[in-house]
Each structure stands twice: as C-alpha cells, then as structure tokens.
C-alpha cells in the first residue's frame, strides 16, 4: 500500500467517525449509511466508532432534568403508542439498500438518468446544500475523463466495478478523492458500473471540453 492509499484509508476512518458523531453533511451520510447496509465490515467499524460516543455518554457529567420530565416522557409514550410499532425490516435484495431507496425510489428503472456523454449517465439526488450526491452509470469498459477534485469526494460502488491508479473497487468499496487525487476511473469490462458519489465541491476536469460542460451538467 503506498502512502496515498494510507492517507485515503485514514480519511475513510475519519469520515466514518464523523458519521458516528453525527457531523457529516447529508450527502456523505447517505454514502456511509448505504455502504454500512452493504458491508459487514463497514458496519462493524461504524458500530465501533459509535461505541466511543457510548463511552463518552457513560462518563458524562450530569445536568438536572426538569422535575416532571419522567412523567411527561410517559405521557408522550402513551400518545405515540397508536402510531409506532416498527418491526425490524427484512434484509435487502437488489442493488439499492433501504437508505438509498428513500432518494432513488425502489429500483433502477425508477431513476431519471441524464446522459453526459460516452454513454455515461448520472442522476442527481436531492440532499442538503453542504454537499451533493449523485448516481453515476458508466458502461462496461468506459473511462471517465481524467479529473481531480476541489474538495472531498466519496465514491461507493453499488454494482459492477471500476479501477484507476489507486486500485480496483467493487460493490461495497469506497474510493475517497481529494486535491491529491487525479484519476481516470474506468469501468471493468464485465459490465456497467453504478456508483453513488458524494462531493463537497465540483469536479475539476483536465481537458477543456468537460470543463465547459460542467456547469450545465452539475458534475
């Protein structure tokens, strides 16, 4: 593993801790919640970072509650009884786990794609303005234009796989891009690659044409 990858690994851990702490923008949270729904290992890591919060809560100072707080909680419970009876949901099938379905609808054919050239398609998901989220569809064997990033970008593979100079990424893997990463992700030959991407800044393209098109396609 080269140093670049090691730094990426740290970044990944830090963003996971950020999710555990609850300080990520919605788009980044969506990527992590989706990855955790796909990958046991990501879930184990998230649960471990959440345990830091648990430990801190256990050790926390106390702040006195209002005298009738417990009563009013029992009253609220009574009121909420008719509305809640959540069952633990079934495990998911298909490529979109539950947290993502809230943004995309149930399946692939419910997505409204926009062509952005070379058969590449994208669909922008609605999140808060602190970062953006989108789905990207890259046909088998197709390379994205070479680009770098102004800010932080997380790319989660949902289907198929892609590779670039940093490695090979398959379903459940996340690649993190930042100012240091100039790459040209290419979908593997076996089939199309579908990714979920969160970014807190627009992409920077190296060649002129995609740069001109960028504002129109919001990539």
């Amino acid at each position: 593993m080269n140093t670049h990858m090691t730094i990426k690994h740290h970044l990944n851990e830090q963003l996971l801790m950020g999710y555990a702490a609850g300080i990520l923008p919605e788009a980044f949270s969506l990527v992590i919640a989706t990855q955790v729904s796909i990958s046991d290992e990501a879930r184990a890591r998230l649960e471990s970072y959440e345990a830091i919060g648990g430990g801190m809560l256990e050790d926390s100072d106390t702040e006195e509650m209002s005298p009738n707080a417990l009563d009013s909680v029992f009253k609220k419970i009574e009121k909420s009884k008719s509305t809640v009876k959540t069952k633990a949901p079934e495990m998911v099938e298909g490529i979109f786990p539950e947290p993502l379905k809230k943004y995309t609808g149930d399946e692939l054919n419910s997505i409204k794609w926009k062509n952005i050239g070379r058969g590449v398609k994208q669909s922008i998901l609605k999140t808060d303005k602190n970062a953006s989220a989108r789905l990207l569809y890259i046909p088998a064997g197709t390379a994205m234009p070479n680009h770098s990033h102004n800010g932080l970008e997380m790319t989660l593979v949902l289907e198929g796989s892609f590779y670039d100079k940093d490695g090979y990424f398959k379903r459940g893997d996340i690649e993190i891009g930042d100012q240091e990463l100039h790459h040209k992700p290419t979908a593997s030959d076996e089939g199309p690659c579908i990714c979920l991407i969160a970014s807190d800044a627009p992409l920077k393209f190296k060649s002129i044409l995609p740069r001109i098109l960028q504002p129109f396609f919001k990539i």
Partner: protein
Amino acid sequence: MLDLLDNINPDVEVLERSFKLSAISNRMLSQVLENNNNKSKDYWARCIVAVAGKSDKEAFSNLFTHFAPRIKSFLMKGGADAIIAEECVQETMVAVWNKAHLFDPTRAAASTWIFTIARNKRIDTARRNNRPEPDVLPWGNETEPDASEIISIQEETTLLAQAVKELPEKQRIIVERAFYNDLSHQEIANETGLPLGTIKSRIRLALQRLRHNMK
C-alpha cells in the same frame, strides 16, 4: 459508684451502638457498591431488554434516572441550550421505549445504543433535515442473550472510552469535539490519522458478532 456506672454505661451503649451502626452502614455501603458494580456490566442492557419484552416501567425509570441527565449534559456541551436539550432528551427517551425491541445487547452497549438515538434526535431537532440511517439488522428471537457476550461488548466500550481519555491532548479534543457536535466534516477530514489502536479490537469483536448473528 452507681452514679459513675450510670454515667459510663450510656456512653458505652452509645459507643457500641455507633459501632453497630457503622458496621451496618458499611455493609449497606458495600452492598450498594456491589450493586453498582453489577450495574456497570450488563445492568442497563437488561433494563432495555425488559422494556422491550415486558414494557417494564420500573426498568425504564431506572434507565431514565441514569441516562437522561447525562444525555442532557452531553447535548449542552455541544452548545444546545437547556430547553432544547431537555426537549431532545425527552424525545430520545420516548424513542428508547419505542425502539427497545430493536436493541441487540450482543452488538452494542446500552450507552452506545442510547447515544446513537440521542445523536439522531439532535440532528432532527437542529437541522430538521434528513439523516440517512443504515438498514436495521434483525436480531434472532433468542429468549435470553448470552450474558458473557453482553458483558464483553460493555467492557470493550469501557476500554475504548479509556483509550480516548489517554490520547494526546490535541487528538483527544478533536475526538471529543466531534462527538459533542462541535466540529465540521472538513476539520475531521483534515486530521492526519487518529491513533486509536483500541478501536481495532472493538472492530474485530463487532465483526465476529455480526457474522454470528447472520448465521
């Protein structure tokens, strides 16, 4: 002589009584301590399980008395004012009751699970925006979760809390500020590596539990 005896005896009695009393209070104290020690392992997890299984109001009241003032203090450290914090704690505790059946004591310590609920409520209250959450994993219908599993997950949580306290000051403050909601995502991303060796054993344990539960 009689007078003297009369005078002495009460004193002796008082002394004796106070010895007995202190013996009793010592015994009571050690019982209380023992209870507290028992509590520190899997007591709170069992309270949540009792809320889930039997709608146990007493178990819930105990959880409330212990956790509510801690959650409130936790939230106020992140800058919430007392009224908002109080409201958020109450909503958290309502959710603890309503979601108790989703708690898996072999995967999270009670304090960790309650922390995640409070964190989500805090985000709901502060931003009123969406918070994507991972799928909830179903956990087996086993009647009684294995006590040793519950205890080891609790012990790992305690170790982790200890490890955070022992971090170099600058890094400890970063971690604490993150969890108190006093840090941006860029700030945490700019940290060059937080040396949390202890997290690795916690991750191994978590992975083991997940695979066990999936079977």
